């Protein structure tokens, strides 16, 4: 045993020492300056250089994650734990206190509330529909019903309901804003989860047209604005809420003839104290 062991030990030890020394030396000599976070991220990664992320190894992944080109969840080997750690390093979830949720600001169900001008032949995507005379609905500001927002949502948090309008599932919504970008009509906005009062319309047509094409359009009458103490202003025939000044209890929502302004959950007194007061106050008056 002895005679074979010695050369083995010497060889391996020698090789090991040679390369270890060389590498340590090289590391010192050839070090390249980089973002310290890359090193931090790298230390969290599995380091298997397996390429499972589709990139050239863990170093590349770390660089891309720090550079924002790759999602923190991009490492399939590391799983959620690693993702959480990387997110912590990058400070992605920097103390966001108010949860934002997407809100759909159109309630014009095609054929029911909103007039339909013609049948449409072509791809169902909203963006494509908007190009052809603005889609089936007569309203050029309302929901096209093609579900581009549904496709854009990676969290299945938005569905087209039986009326053909998108509906957000609060519990699944992460407030990422993908649907906001996807909507060619800008009818989706991010709002704090507990916000209740909205103008559910983006129509800026003149009152006559608006009234004609949709039963639930904001027709720009301005009644809500008059009694809002300045929180609601009329911009191009559309009521716009300034939430920093809003006192929902004084808004005469029941006087809105088309119900374009109103509460997300009309009879949900529990969800929003002030909204509840407004509802009961107006009911009394």
């Amino acid at each position, binding site marked *: 045993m002895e005679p074979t062991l010695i050369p083995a030990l010497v060889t*391996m030890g020698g090789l090991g020492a040679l390369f270890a020394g060389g590498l340590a030396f090289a*590391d010192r000599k050839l070090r390249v300056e980089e973002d310290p976070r890359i090193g931090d991220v790298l230390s969290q990664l599995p380091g298997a250089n*397996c390429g*499972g992320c589709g*990139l050239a190894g863990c170093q590349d992944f770390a660089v891309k994650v720090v550079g924002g080109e790759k999602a923190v969840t991009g490492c399939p080997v590391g799983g959620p734990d690693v993702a959480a750690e990387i997110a912590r390093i990058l400070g992605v979830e920097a103390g966001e206190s108010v949860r934002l949720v997407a809100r759909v600001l159109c309630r014009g169900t095609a054929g029911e509330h909103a007039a339909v001008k013609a049948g449409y032949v072509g791809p169902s995507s909203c963006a494509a529909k908007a190009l052809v005379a603005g889609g089936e609905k007569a309203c050029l500001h309302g929901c096209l019903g093609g579900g581009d927002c549904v496709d854009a949502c990676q969290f299945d948090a938005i569905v087209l309901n039986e009326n053909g309008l998108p509906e957000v599932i609060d519990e699944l919504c992460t407030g990422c804003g993908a649907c906001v970008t996807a909507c060619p009509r800008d009818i989706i906005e991010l709002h704090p989860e507990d916000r209740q009062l909205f103008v559910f319309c983006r129509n800026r047509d003149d009152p006559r047209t608006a009234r004609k094409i949709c039963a639930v359009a904001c027709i720009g009458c301005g009644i809500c604005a008059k009694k809002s103490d300045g929180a609601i202003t009329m911009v191009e025939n559309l009521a716009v809420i300034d939430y920093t000044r809003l006192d929902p209890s004084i808004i005469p929502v029941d006087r809105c003839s088309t119900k374009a302004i109103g509460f997300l959950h009309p009879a949900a007194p529990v969800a929003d104290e002030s909204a509840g007061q407004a509802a009961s106050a107006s009911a009394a008056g």
Partner: protein
Amino acid sequence: MDLLLIFIGAAVVNNFVLSYFLGICPFIGVSGRLSSAVSMGMATTFVLVMTAMVTWVLQAYVLGPLRLEYLQTVAFILVVASLVQFVEMVIRKTSPPLYRALGIFLPLITTNCAILGLALFIQLRGYGFVQSVVFGLGAGVGFTLALCLMAGIREELDLADVPGPLRGAGITLLVAGTMALAFMGFAGMI
């Protein structure tokens, strides 16, 4: 002629990826985009040729004479890993463009089975030095070929409606399987 046969054999007939299952991890991982595939293929070819040379020398002048064949695995991987890391550092320092194009793929290659597999095959088949280099080159070209074909297909499939559960690794393996079926046509050529 002999060298040509070794080259074609390694590159096409007994393609490392499609018939020896070597280097599957990068084959699946890095075949998403053609540009990365080309870089990865070239980097791998470089390392394969280097490995062929270094391990042959190591075997012929150190392990062989000292009758330490049983240390092959340990010694080879140590040498390859260190060398690759060293080359990466050098490239990174000396040529940032080359590093971005090839260098970043180097660490990924250390754990590519094809590298160690090549070293072991060379010993198993008793190739000489030149033969080893050609074999390494052939294996590298074959790997690059498979990787580029796959990358082209996957870029095309990006635009296809591949069923959800098969997207990613699933369809890649199925395509690889079909490619392996197709490459069976070359069977028996060498």
